[in-house]
């Protein structure tokens, strides 16, 4: 697999692995392969939920030195993502932000912005613009 560390990474976290994977498929097919991307969803028992360890793995997998934005669906996806960020090495933590955006549309918007080489704050704004309009 190519490394794309010049662009901001995207991590998609949903209670449903199907939703997370589907959103990631949309990013890959609509935006392309120039953005580091990982997804996770579901609890350890295979049910709906989110899992801190899986989110940590996703963060490492989509890591970029320019930062990673986390797209979450609701509730525990957000709180578990924040816990996952706390488990990262200290110097990585400030480079991760959780976006306040719809998970599917926000992922596509963020990835489009990232694919153009934008910095993490612009990537976050592109995702969150949907809610602020």
């Amino acid at each position, binding site marked *: 697999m190519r490394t794309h560390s010049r662009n901001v990474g995207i991590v998609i976290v949903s209670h449903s692995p199907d939703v997370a994977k589907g959103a990631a498929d949309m990013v890959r097919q609509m935006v392309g392969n120039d953005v580091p991307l990982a997804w996770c969803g579901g609890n350890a028992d295979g049910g709906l939920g989110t899992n801190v360890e899986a989110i940590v793995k996703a963060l490492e997998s989509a890591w970029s030195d320019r930062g990673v934005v986390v797209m979450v669906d609701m509730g525990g996806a957000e709180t578990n993502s924040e816990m996952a960020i706390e488990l990262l090495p200290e110097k990585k933590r400030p480079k991760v932000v959780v976006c306040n955006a719809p998970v599917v549309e926000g992922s596509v918007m963020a990835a489009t912005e990232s694919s153009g080489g934008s910095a993490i704050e612009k990537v976050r704004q592109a995702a969150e*613009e949907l809610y602020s309009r």
Partner: protein
Amino acid sequence: MSECESLAMRDEPRAAASAMLAHEGGLHARPAIKVVQLAKRYAAHVWIGTAANGPWIDAKSIARVMAMKTPNHTMLYFTATGGDADAAVKALAQLVSDEFRISPNDAG
């Protein structure tokens, strides 16, 4: 400040190009993403509109370009300012003419 005003306030020379949108579904998600990705390859400020005199939308904003919901068979206008403005508007008009077949990785 609206984007129209910000554009009108610029005294720099403007490049312009246009192309007819002939793509099933109009400027829907995927074509909009391709427009934005291509626009972002240029340093120029680039705007898109559906009339020759605006109003103008920032062609590098995915949320705004998608929100145009431009239907098929609409003439798309591009205008740009900056060093590579000519190349930017030509490439964008060509992308539309080619019905977005150009991969963003091949363009620019």
